[in-house]
């Protein structure tokens, strides 16, 4: 793949300086600025009037786009009719949506303050706790690994390391949860983490990882770290290669050592990437964490394991409590839109292109 398409893909995601070779960067940036200005003036220029002639002339393009547009509306927006269930006492056996009993805001009351109030508050806390812990641990881990990988001068060794650490990203969560279940089990069931801890002498008796509620957030964060650590470094490594080498040379001339350069050049150099990624990811904070709590959370630890998505699937879908699950789903969607929207605004304010 040539360079142009790569940087174009990068632009699409709002991390534009990341994957460019350093040498052409400043010239490229100037060119792009000019291009952007031109695009803007075109976009905001005199609006073409849409006449039937134009629409007819573009019938081929319309034929390509409109059926798919209708398709998307059907599968992404039309399901909103299901939100009606939130205001009903929905019983699957009673027939369709129009045969149900309307109850107003009873379900909202029930979920947020009433009978389910305590459980749902804990569910929200679990979602936030697991997400934030995963996000923080994952971000720190990826930055540190990117910095260390950047110091490896042997390119072959570096490539091998990258390929090994990227690999778990492509395994499904089912497989990862299965591996984690084995790893965390008791020593005689093949739990090699316990075997290791016992052998080294850190603990005297096996740790019951999956039956102790207080460990669960850590297990989720740790397992996610194992899966995504290498993959998350890619963006940071790309950002590091975009740092002007002249900065390092100047620092060397001034007598900066390895750590000095890492701390005072590399880290500030990738700071915009770090901040933008953190902001973007924090927008999705209620939407992450589904598979691990679903697979690894059992009855003994559900007070710490149950997240919104698990609640919707287990309590709502599988136990037939559709109404309350839809209320929880509406809550999640609305909060997510607010979070993602403000995250995008914040990222935009930092003068970075975002997707929307």
């Amino acid at each position, binding site marked *: 793949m040539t360079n142009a398409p790569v940087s174009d893909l990068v632009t699409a995601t709002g991390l534009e300086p990341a994957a460019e070779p350093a040498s052409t960067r400043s010239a490229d940036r100037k060119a792009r600025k000019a291009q952007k200005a031109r695009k803007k003036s075109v976009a905001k220029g005199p609006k*073409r009037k849409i006449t039937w002639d134009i629409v007819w002339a573009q019938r081929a393009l319309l034929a390509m786009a409109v059926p798919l547009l209708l398709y998307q509306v059907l599968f992404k927006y039309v399901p909103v009719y299901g939100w009606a269930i939130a205001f009903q006492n929905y019983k699957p056996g009673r027939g369709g949506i129009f045969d149900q009993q309307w109850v107003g805001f009873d379900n909202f009351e029930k979920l947020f303050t009433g009978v389910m109030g305590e459980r749902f508050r804990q569910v929200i806390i679990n979602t936030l706790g697991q997400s934030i812990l995963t996000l923080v641990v994952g971000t720190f881990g990826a930055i540190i690994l990117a910095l*260390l990988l950047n110091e490896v001068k042997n390119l072959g060794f570096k490539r091998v390391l990258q390929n090994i650490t990227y690999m778990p990203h492509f395994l499904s969560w089912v497989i990862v949860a299965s591996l984690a279940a084995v790893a965390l089990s008791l020593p005689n069931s093949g739990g090699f983490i316990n075997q290791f801890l016992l052998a080294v002498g850190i603990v005297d008796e096996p740790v019951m990882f999956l039956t102790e509620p207080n460990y669960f957030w850590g297990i989720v964060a740790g397992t996610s770290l194992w899966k995504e650590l290498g993959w998350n470094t890619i963006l940071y490594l790309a950002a590091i290669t975009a740092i002007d080498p002249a900065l390092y040379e100047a620092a060397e001339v001034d007598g900066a050592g390895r750590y000095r350069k890492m701390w005072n050049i590399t880290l500030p150099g990738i700071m915009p990437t770090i901040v933008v990624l953190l902001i*973007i990811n924090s927008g999705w904070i209620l939407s992450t964490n589904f598979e691990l709590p679903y697979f690894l959370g059992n009855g003994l630890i559900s007070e710490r394991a149950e997240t919104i998505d698990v609640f919707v699937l287990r309590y709502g879908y599988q136990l037939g409590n559709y109404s309350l699950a839809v209320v929880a789903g509406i809550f999640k969607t609305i909060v997510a839109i607010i979070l993602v929207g403000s995250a995008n605004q914040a990222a935009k304010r930092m003068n970075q292109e975002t997707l929307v």
Partner: protein
Amino acid sequence: MSSTPVGAPVQPVAQPGAEPAAKPLATLVARPLIRRKPPKTRRKKLTTEHVLFTTANTTFLIVLAAVTLYPLLNTLAISLNDGMDAVRGGIGIWPRVFSLKNYEVVLNMDTIYKAFFMSVLKTVVVVATNLFFTSMLAYALSRSEFVFRRPITLIFVLTMYFDAGLIPNYLLIRDLGMLNSFQAYWVPVIISAFNLIVLRTYMKSIPEEVIESARMDGAGHFRVWWQIVMPLCKPALAVIGLFVAVGSWNAWLDTLLYNSGEQWLSTLQYELQKLLASSMNAGQNSGNMANNAASVASGGQLTSPIALRSAITMVAAVPILCVYPFLQKHFVSGLMIGSVKG
């Protein structure tokens, strides 16, 4: 300072060696050499620190790689071990009593065997339809003369952030009569908004002249899309296709929600998930997997749940590990699809 040329002026020791070394050379040789010189002197000066850091760093990274690989190697070893023996535990990365029996049992299990082919079929259909429709729409939206491209793009982009929720989506599929049918796998996912934007941006980078000249020669939009733009988009299509394939292969929730009623529609990930769920209930709570050892018998062959599960895990992971080498080439562009999406 050992490399400082004899003729150079004597410098205070605190001053780094770059300047004195560079000056006399600058008069003799081309500029690039000056740039290369300073690091060499530095490296000699910082030998102990450099060696220490490199050793520590290398060791740490090797340990990290080992930690990444160990769970998979361990599962591989267990799957290649005799099932009854595996229950005793203590298998590292090498099988203790080598046996292919687990794989024999797994591949003879009707459900797993069929689920494997259903996973393959589903992945192929999803990738084909997804690439076809996404690229067609991306082409239309990449044409700057297309009057409705902005509102249409906006409607698609918003779906990245808006999700009606699990149960409303389920109700739609149910009301469309697609429960327990193969359509439930591919029809709802023929377009991914994110890939659409990536592809549209890629198509915009194709020189306008290429498309213009084809249009001049009388090619319609469908023809330009299929015969001109698609071949030029191969790299982007490869990336998107591979990621869609991985996503489809790894999915299990669609089977659980829509198609769990029909055994022939079961996928490998779903079967593995069922096995995982049952062993989590049976094994973890009683605290000992040995309790239900020997409970699995298939075709007169005895093996244990843990060995069997390991074998199925490997069967589910191997196709991914096989396409992995092909994915590598596209990492730099692929990460944009994978990571930012979260």
